[in-house]
């Protein structure tokens, strides 16, 4: 099955529930995060709890990587299987921007000096909102509030700071901040052509992988911000009416195996950081990770820093709506 978007798969499951199809559904396994997960969990559209029925789940690093059990502040409760980590990074062309930037405020300053050379994906796109959420972490007076549902009183001071910053930045974005790339990957050809010097990514290995594929210049490098960057886990979930539950569980378990995880972390393949606790693995499995090639374009482990938790989904909804109101019309 090929869908353009996770939300399309969710829409199908919702439609099937509405049509009363309680078994033999057309979706067996969904890659799911954030609002999509919340929507499915709330509407009882998920099969499970499933995580602890998978043999490989015991190696998941639940303490060191809390995003594996709490997705966007929502407890996963075993209803979804974490299979890879993701963390906000920025990719820059070191030939044009030799020194990494240290904060979102610095990004606005840099953009003023280099108009048209950075951007963010469309706000309708997940990574586009993440760009704003990342700024929110830095600009909000009370970081802790981001983990609770957004109330009017918490929202106002944070939003004021956010939009003041964004209004400074936007005129100096690519295309004058009037148009945006449709997705994260759509930024890559723009850097390759020399239109962009800096862009946001959710994959610490994106630069390394893309350089290997000829999709980014050899001089592309990765940096994170001083105050830390947002990280989350990607989950797999099985719809309540999946036609092939056993096969779906086997697939999810395979993706959790050290073999699959190491392969996914290989920058020549996906470059996705593992969800496993390396220390808990048997030595021969740990060796698989140690054998992975390093790349100067990729950040790993300590260089990435401990990821910030995803804000409560209500923040994302409110920011998106406000952005649409201010700049979308």
């Amino acid at each position, binding site marked *: 099955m090929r869908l353009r978007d996770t939300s399309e798969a969710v829409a199908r499951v919702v*439609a099937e529930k509405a049509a009363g199809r309680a078994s033999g559904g057309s979706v067996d396994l969904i890659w799911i995060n954030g609002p999509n997960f919340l929507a499915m969990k709330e509407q009882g559209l998920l099969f499970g709890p499933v995580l602890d029925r998978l043999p490989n789940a015991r190696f998941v690093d639940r303490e060191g990587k809390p995003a594996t059990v709490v997705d966007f502040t929502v407890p996963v409760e075993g209803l979804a299987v974490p299979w890879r980590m993701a963390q906000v990074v920025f990719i820059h062309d070191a030939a044009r921007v030799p020194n990494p930037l240290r904060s979102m405020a610095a990004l606005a300053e840099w953009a003023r000096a280099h108009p048209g050379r950075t951007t963010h994906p469309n706000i309708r796109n997940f990574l586009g909102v993440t760009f704003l959420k990342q700024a929110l972490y830095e600009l909000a007076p009370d970081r802790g509030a981001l983990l609770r549902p957004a109330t009017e009183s918490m929202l106002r001071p944070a939003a004021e700071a956010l939009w003041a910053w964004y209004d400074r930045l936007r005129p100096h974005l690519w295309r004058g901040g009037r148009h945006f790339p*449709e997705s994260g*990957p*759509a930024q890559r050809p723009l850097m390759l*052509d020399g*239109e962009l010097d800096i862009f946001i990514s959710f994959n610490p290995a994106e630069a390394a992988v893309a350089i290997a594929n000829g999709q980014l210049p050899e001089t592309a490098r990765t940096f994170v911000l001083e105050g830390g960057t947002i990280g989350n886990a990607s989950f797999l979930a099985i719809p309540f009416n999946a036609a092939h539950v056993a096969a779906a569980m086997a697939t999810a378990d395979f993706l959790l195996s050290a073999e699959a995880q190491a392969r996914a972390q290989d920058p020549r393949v996906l470059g996705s950081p593992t969800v496993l606790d390396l220390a808990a693995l048997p030595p021969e499995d740990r060796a698989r990770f140690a054998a992975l090639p390093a790349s100067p374009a990729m950040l790993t482990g300590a260089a990435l820093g401990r990821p910030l938790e995803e804000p409560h989904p209500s923040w994302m909804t409110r920011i998106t709506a406000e952005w649409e109101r201010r700049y*979308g019309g």
Partner: protein
Amino acid sequence: MGTAIRGLSRCCAPRRRWTLALFLGPVLAGLLGTLLPAFGWLPALGGAALSLDPWRGLLEAPGLARAVALTVLTGLAATLISFLLAMGFCAAAQGMRAFRWAQAMLAPVLATPHAALAIGFAFLIAPSGWVARWISPWATGWERPPDVATVRDEAGLALVLGLVLKEAPYLLLMAVAALGQVPAAQALRVARGLGYGPVMAWLKVVLPMIYPQLRLPLRAVLAFSLSVVDVAVVLGLGQPPTLAVLVLRWLSDRDLALWFPAAAGSVLLLVLVLAALALLSALEGVAAWLGRRWVEKGARGGDAVLLRGAAPALFGLALLASALAMAGLLLWSFAGPWRFPETLPAALTSATWQRQVQAITDPARTTLAVAVLATLIALALVLACLEAESRHGLRPGRRVMAILWLPLLVPQLAFLFGWQVLLVRLGLDGTLVAVVWAHLLFVLPYVFLSLADPWRAMDPRQARAAAVLGAGPCRVFLAVKLPLMLRPVLVAAAVGIAVSAGLYLPTLFAGAGRVATLTTEAVTLAGGADRRILGAYATLQAALPLLAYALAAAIPALLHRNRRGMRAA
């Protein structure tokens, strides 16, 4: 004995009613299935009472007004420019060698799917595109692409031009077909003898003669331009998008409540198209009235040197852009490193194809299967209709022809949405059957239009001669008519395959997003993937119909190499 013959005749010529049911069913049911949710009725999603809420939701959607304005402006502009370009070319290039060249170029351009051409065109005119690379940095000083939106621009210019690239040649083809049915050359000589300049003579005499045959194609172009999705996704602005793209976005949203305003949006699109068609009819009335006044004033016009040079040059430019767009796709798919502003890739490599071969095989196979199945069914139905027509002397009336054109005039979104709901009911959504059926709606009209004229022009005496020799109607059909018609049948098949290979929305809806063809994949990738991969998908998407055309030309030439009477005129 008599009964047996009648029975046999019936077996060969199934009722036209079947064809119509297969055809009208989805469109009408689909329209109803869109109309009801637009007024709040869709019990499966909790819409159990009629209301105007979907319309309120639609009207409150941010950017709706701009989306509507963009839709109307780009749709009208693309239609008008295509028409002026095609007619200007006909008027100016008549009798020139350029006319023959252009005619030879029409088939490949028309065979190329909209999406592939749009993708190639974007490669050509993007700030980092081929054109900018040719003139940089020596002429422009650009070491890096300029920060200017030459595609996905706010005015929708790239979208308009992308549509014109396909629609102007289509209208020219229709004009050439119409020219063959009127005494255009003699009428021109009469007018020239009366002192009329070449362009003036064409405009005042030939255009009014062929225009009646251009009315429906022009309407199809208008409806298509207003409701197109794939070209708009590739070349249009993401925010605000055109109405059709906006509606599609809502339909694929996780929030199913958006289906209601989406249904209302589909109905609004239908209303826009109907209004535009009415506007076109009104304009035709005014133009005819003014035109008659103008013609009766007797102004002769001059040599029109400027126009005779400019119109072919502009049309040639459009054809050249198409050719370069396709060349660009092919080149990117074989490109090694290719940084701006290098004119050509540093190296050619088959690495992209090798890496994609696995991923691309499935959608390619599906595309081929759907195209071949839909075309075969369409051919069978069309041949049955034409055969019944010649046996019983029935000519389809205006009503039947209107039904045939219906799927080409009604915006696809307006009935595909409702039809998908029906397909889910029937448990057919996302199956190959549903996709082939959906494709049939669009393949059948083109196959019919392509085959009907040559079939009707067949000399009836040959069939009669065979009948006198004792051949039954079925044998006459199989042994005489089909072989005689081999070339037009194959051309019609190629047209069918080209139409099917290019369909985006019907595949997306009937396939419920699960049936991937080269078109759906290419449009999805056009969102920003690697240009080399995109180039590979779009190249293959275009190669399939081109191959079909080449076969349609080669097979008769091969089979009939010893038959002078069967060669192309």
